[in-house]
């Protein structure tokens, strides 16, 4: 069903063109004057030297959350890989050393060349292990292989970078690690 959009006929002033042209010239003049006299107010970020500010909700590079003892929280259930529309998550599980936990992750690869950064993996995770809040938006590597983030890469983050996040502070090196370790209760070799 086609919808006909009725366009307003131009008034005589508009049909004369010259006045509308003047209006356009006034607009560009305002912008040019801002660029010239208020150069610092231009919205441009001179990129590699200046970095854009990234919101907390921004879906950037992934990271894997850690238990108080430093092992990844991931239980290798495969929900993220199942949710991934781009099929870029590859997980292999193995036997966990901890008797309370059935599986632990042995291989956790995310191919960032394939990833569409939809955030469905982080949504799908039942244990809040996978997050996308690193605010790392630059992916620059020489080979295709380097774009694949491995497990060691994903758990390599510093709690100091997430000062407001209580969950991150429970990881080793965080401010709440000591008490969280007591609650967790068990040293795992």
């Amino acid at each position: 069903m086609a919808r006909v959009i009725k366009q307003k006929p131009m008034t005589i002033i508009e049909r004369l063109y010259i006045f509308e042209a003047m209006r356009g010239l006034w607009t560009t003049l305002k912008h040019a004057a801002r660029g010239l006299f208020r150069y610092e107010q231009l919205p441009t970020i001179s990129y590699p030297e200046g970095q854009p500010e990234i919101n907390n909700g921004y879906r950037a590079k992934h990271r894997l959350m850690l238990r108080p003892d430093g092992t990844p929280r991931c239980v290798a259930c495969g929900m993220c890989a199942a949710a991934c529309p781009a099929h870029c998550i590859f997980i292999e599980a193995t036997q966990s050393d901890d008797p309370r936990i059935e599986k632990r992750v042995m291989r956790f690869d995310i191919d960032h060349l394939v990833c569409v950064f939809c955030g469905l993996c982080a949504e799908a995770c039942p244990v809040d292990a996978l997050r996308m809040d690193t605010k790392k938006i630059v992916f620059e590597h020489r080979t295709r292989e380097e774009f694949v983030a491995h497990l060691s890469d994903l758990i390599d983050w510093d709690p100091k970078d997430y000062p407001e996040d209580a969950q991150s502070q429970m990881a080793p090196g965080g401010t709440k690690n000591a008490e969280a370790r007591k609650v967790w209760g068990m040293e795992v070799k």
Partner: protein
Amino acid sequence: MDIIESKSWVEWLITIAKFAFCFVPVLYILLLIPMERRGAGFMQDRQGPNRSYIKIPYFGKIRLLGYVQNMCDGAKLFFKEMFAPKGVSKFLYYVAPAIPFAIIFISPCVIPWFGPMVFEWGGKAVTISGAILDSEVGILLLFGFSSLSAYGAVLAGWASKSKYSYLGSLRTTAMTVSYEVCQGISMMGLLVLAGSFSLTDIVSWQEQHVWGIVAQPVAFFCFLIATIAETGRAPFDVAEGDPELVAGFHTEYGAMHFGMFYMGEYAHICIASFLVATLFLGGYSVPFVTTETMQAHMGGSLAILCGVLAFLFLAFLHMMHRYSKKLLASKQSNKMVILQEYKLYKIVGWLAVAVFVAAGVCSWMFYNPVQTVVDGVLTNTLGAALGTALIHLLVLVVKSVFFCWVWIWVRWTLPRFRYDHIMNLGWKIILNIALVNLVVTAVVAKLLGGN
């Protein structure tokens, strides 16, 4: 030998030095290219090209406010290989870009750069005209020269054996011819008022009466539109309309061939803006002040000039300061490099302010040349005459830079007209308005008993 002895050495020196004005359009190219590129950036809320830099040992990097980018582009064009596609007409292909470029050295000859210098030398009153060639038909000469540059486009399109080039040059031909008519007729009203074809006379008429833009506002608009069309710039740039014709008449050109077309275009803008400023904005005449008043108070006039320049530098320093403050507060990783460069500009700026203020105060206090009557003519000293010429020249430059800005401004605001719209506008609208304007002007001038 008579011709040499007919003038004193000072007269000869000034007459020959005036030939330096031939290079003004070339200097304007250097000004217009950054003005166009960064101006376009500012209008679109971008910063424009500003990343290239020169590395100075022991100091850091300087970007010259983005100017280095233009040097880089120029160097690139200059060192690229010049080649011709197969099957072109070799001679015409190589000659075509030279035509618009050669014309930029001829056109400035007839523009009056300053008012006639009248000064006393060796007990005689000496008069030197402000134009290199003070012709009785100066304006016609100028029109002739500037319409010659269309030949560059026409020959380029014909010689380069490409249908896009050919179509582009066809359009250029038709458009130039039709808008030349509009241009000539819209200007005629002013010539009727001034009663002369000489540009010097037109300017002195405007100085004594009113500026052309006040006397002939309609003609001014017609002339401006026709002149923009004649330079082949947007919104009238159908000759190189990129969505239809790749790049129009210079599709097959690269390297410095293209560069010459490019420079020819900018120089054409420069000449056209000088023409508009001379015809309609009083040329070299200073607004609200007559040349006689200025010469009677030479020291004060120079002081005001220095004051204006000092104010401009202060404004520049203020902008620098504000931008540096913002930059210092930001997290940009190269901010210290940029601030180092700005420190240099601040030093230069403060030095310039100091020099201009000192010069202004000195000329205000101590420079008071006397006017004498020699051979029945009120004459000045040579210094006062040169000072007047300098002020006149700067005023003309300011006016023409404003019109150059109008060219850029219009280009980045209005979208390109369709070809038939351009012809419609030229033949059915502007030409008629200009004709009516000419008739009305002539009748009114006759009734009021003018020229």
